């Protein structure tokens, strides 16, 4: 045994200083959305003429209750469901009364018989889109589905628990389990449910799922500890730490917004499979789908490998062309927004001040995209 006469004193000092550091320097709530977007870009969620939400940032049952009520109040029209990421819910250098393209589209098309509604979550991968679509098609009478397909988001994998907390609590599962990607998503939902219920993860196929005393006590203790600010703030601490690591990594390796983002084969394939599942499910149910390559800042060098980006676009187009009777409409809007309508974002590393924003544009850009999408909807009609 290591002899250290002062070990207990050292540990006591360390416990006290840890408490001091955690409560003094990390007590505030960090808005990670703002960290990702920077100060120039603002999150804006579209509303209808009465100010009711037509745009959710997560599939949250508590929020969606009002979402559905407002849809009923507008006359329960067939829905055009819009799926999106931060480009959908962000406006660069927003001024007063400026709204996003979802709201512009909603207002312009409400009298044409469909109600535009949107779910957008930051960096949403197509596996998350598939889950969102699977959930909402059971609640709303979807007529059209609009899916922007971002090359960036093809690098994302799986689903994120915090955007689907209520679905996880409700043990939601995608009903069509004939495809591999549904099984993968269902497995992840189960895993998150187990984590949420403090059920210890196990890889052992021989171990049945049962709620044990361990889980009951852990759940009870955590619920009570959550009452204390210092304990409740732990997710923020983890977020802060990972955000710092992310910036450190970018600084060390010189990664910027303009750095080439390589395709990750397995993730790319899983996301393509999810896209195929969305399109197949919706067209087989008679819903028309608009898939589009979203706008990107085109007046500077793109942060993609040009061959991979071209292959990606071709693959989407081939997928859309494979369906008869214009059931799937493919559009490429990559270059419709001119360079001056884009802005900058906060640095993604520890030294630079700000960087080119390839994803989020100004209000005028939203107007251009809304017009283009409106025409695509006309074409699909």
């Amino acid at each position, binding site marked *: 045994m290591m002899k250290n006469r002062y*070990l207990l004193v050292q540990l006591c000092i360390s416990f006290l200083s840890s408490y001091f550091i955690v409560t003094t320097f990390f007590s505030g709530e960090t808005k990670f959305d703002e960290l990702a977007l920077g100060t120039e870009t603002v999150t804006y969620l579209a509303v209808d003429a009465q100010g009711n939400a037509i745009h959710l940032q997560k599939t949250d049952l508590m929020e969606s209750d009002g979402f559905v009520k407002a849809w009923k109040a507008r006359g329960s029209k067939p829905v055009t469901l819009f799926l999106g990421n931060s480009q959908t819910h962000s406006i660069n250098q927003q001024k007063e009364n400026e709204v996003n393209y979802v709201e512009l589209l909603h207002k312009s098309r409400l009298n044409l018989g469909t109600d535009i509604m949107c779910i957008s979550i930051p960096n949403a991968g197509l596996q998350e889109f598939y889950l969102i679509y699977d959930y909402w098609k059971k609640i709303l009478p979807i007529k059209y589905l609009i899916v922007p397909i971002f090359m960036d988001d093809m690098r994302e994998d799986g689903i994120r628990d915090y955007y689907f907390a209520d679905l996880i609590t409700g043990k939601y599962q995608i009903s069509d389990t004939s495809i591999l990607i549904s099984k993968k998503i269902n497995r992840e939902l189960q895993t998150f449910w187990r984590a949420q219920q403090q059920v210890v993860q196990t890889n052992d196929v021989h171990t049945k799922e049962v709620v044990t005393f361990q889980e009951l006590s*852990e759940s009870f203790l955590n619920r009570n500890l959550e009452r204390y600010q210092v304990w409740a703030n732990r997710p923020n601490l983890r977020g802060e730490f990972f955000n710092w690591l992310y910036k450190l990594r970018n600084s060390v390796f010189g990664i910027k917004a303009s750095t080439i983002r390589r395709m990750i084969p397995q993730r790319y394939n899983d996301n393509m499979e999810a896209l195929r599942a969305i399109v197949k499910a919706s067209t087989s149910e008679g819903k028309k789908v608009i898939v589009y390559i979203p706008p990107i800042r085109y007046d500077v060098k793109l942060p993609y490998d040009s061959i991979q980006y071209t292959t990606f676009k071709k693959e989407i187009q081939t997928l859309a062309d494979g369906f008869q009777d214009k059931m799937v409409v493919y559009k490429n809007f990559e270059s419709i927004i001119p360079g001056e309508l884009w802005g900058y974002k906060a640095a993604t590393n520890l030294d630079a001040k700000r960087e080119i924003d390839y994803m989020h544009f100004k209000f005028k850009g939203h107007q251009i995209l809304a017009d283009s999408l409106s025409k695509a909807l006309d074409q699909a009609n």
Partner: protein
Amino acid sequence: MVFNSVTFIIFLTSVITFYWFLPKKIRMWMLLFASCIFYGFWRWEYLSVMFISALTDYFTAIEIEKTPLKNKKRRNGLLAITLVVNLGLLCYFKYLYFFTENANSVLNFFNIDFSLPLWRVILPFGISFYTFETISYTVDVFRGLIKAERSFLNYGLFVTFFPKLVAGPIQRAGELLPQLKERPSFRSIYLAEGLRRILCGLFLKVVLADNISPFVDEGFAQNAATFSAIDVWMLAFLFGFQIYFDFSAYSHIAVGAAQMMGITIPENFNYPYIASSFKDFWKRWHISLSSWIRDYLYLPLSNVKVVKTTGAGGIGEGLETTNQQAKTKGLFLTWAIMGLWHGANWTFVFWGVFHATVIFCERKLKPLRDRFPFFKISLVGWAITLPLVMLSWIPFRAKSLDDTFMMLSKLASFKNYTFYTMRENSYIVTAVVTLLFLSNYLAMIFLEDRIKRIPTLSFAVNCVRFTIIIIFVFTFLRPISQFIYFQF
């Protein structure tokens, strides 16, 4: 109960408090009761399995001791009861599904239209560990190395003692029983040392192992056919570190919890990834298992008489004189069993045979190695051993033997070294973890003693180090995943 939970922290605090305040006799009962609660927090009904194993060995050991040495038949019969009951429990709970599944494959292969029903049986936590402990106890009594314990309270506590119950270190009765019976006087250093070890263990588990885990899980979930050689190396290293942090974390906490009661549990790890040969690796990795396997499997299988057993490896008579054939047979058989002990899957058997093969090659190449001084440098040995050890983790983690062979085959083609397929973070994390491990080891070798010579500096460095560890443990403490070795 899992160590990485708030429940365990409260449980341990209560047990330690009672332990140091209660009188001796009551304290023993309290510890036995607490150990049962610890186990019952997972599934209380499986306490009965543990007690079947414990009671069998308790009575057979006493009977063996009572039986004169010349009555070999009765002694052997009693030992057989112990082995049948313990190995029977192990086979039923751990291998029933595996055996029936394989039997069905054989029947199918011979076109026999019959299949055995497949029963999925819940695997009781720690069964591989406590059955090994009870077996070793009876075998040691049989060999005349220790006396049979007459008090069931003491013996029950040896089996159920909660810090090492679920995933070791595998204890020998001769080492733990005397400590349980004799409580040392309270010293604050026990609490401080124990707490230090627990904090280190929690850091390794909740900060390192649990955060490496998503990268490993994502990697091994991929289609093995799409991997490049770089991916395979990366996954081998990453899982190698994950399992090391995870398992050594458990051992740190086990040792720390026992230390808080003034009880010494043998160390299970000693920087295994700086080993300069596979033989050296197994003196540093899961030491309690490798020494157990040596004392109760390898030496008997190699026709060597064991004259002393300890947690650090026993002493055998005639090891040097036994013939090579017996040693080689013992080596491969031991390792195949060792692999199967880890899990009911052919991948584990392959893992065991892989290790046996490398150790066999090391033995065969020893004369050659001795002729070239270059190979005697431990750095060269390390540079050869580390990648091979890491590669051996592939079958340990892969979903199937097919995946294992597919992944290993990727290493053979130069073309597979020209691309990579996973997210960049996976490679960065692997590199950082490897560098941190090595720098931590070098710091321990070259800096620690120098710092200790300056008391003020040592005091300050320790305070900073513990503060960082406490903040990280506080931030990341969540029972999101069990310890990997719980499934064995």
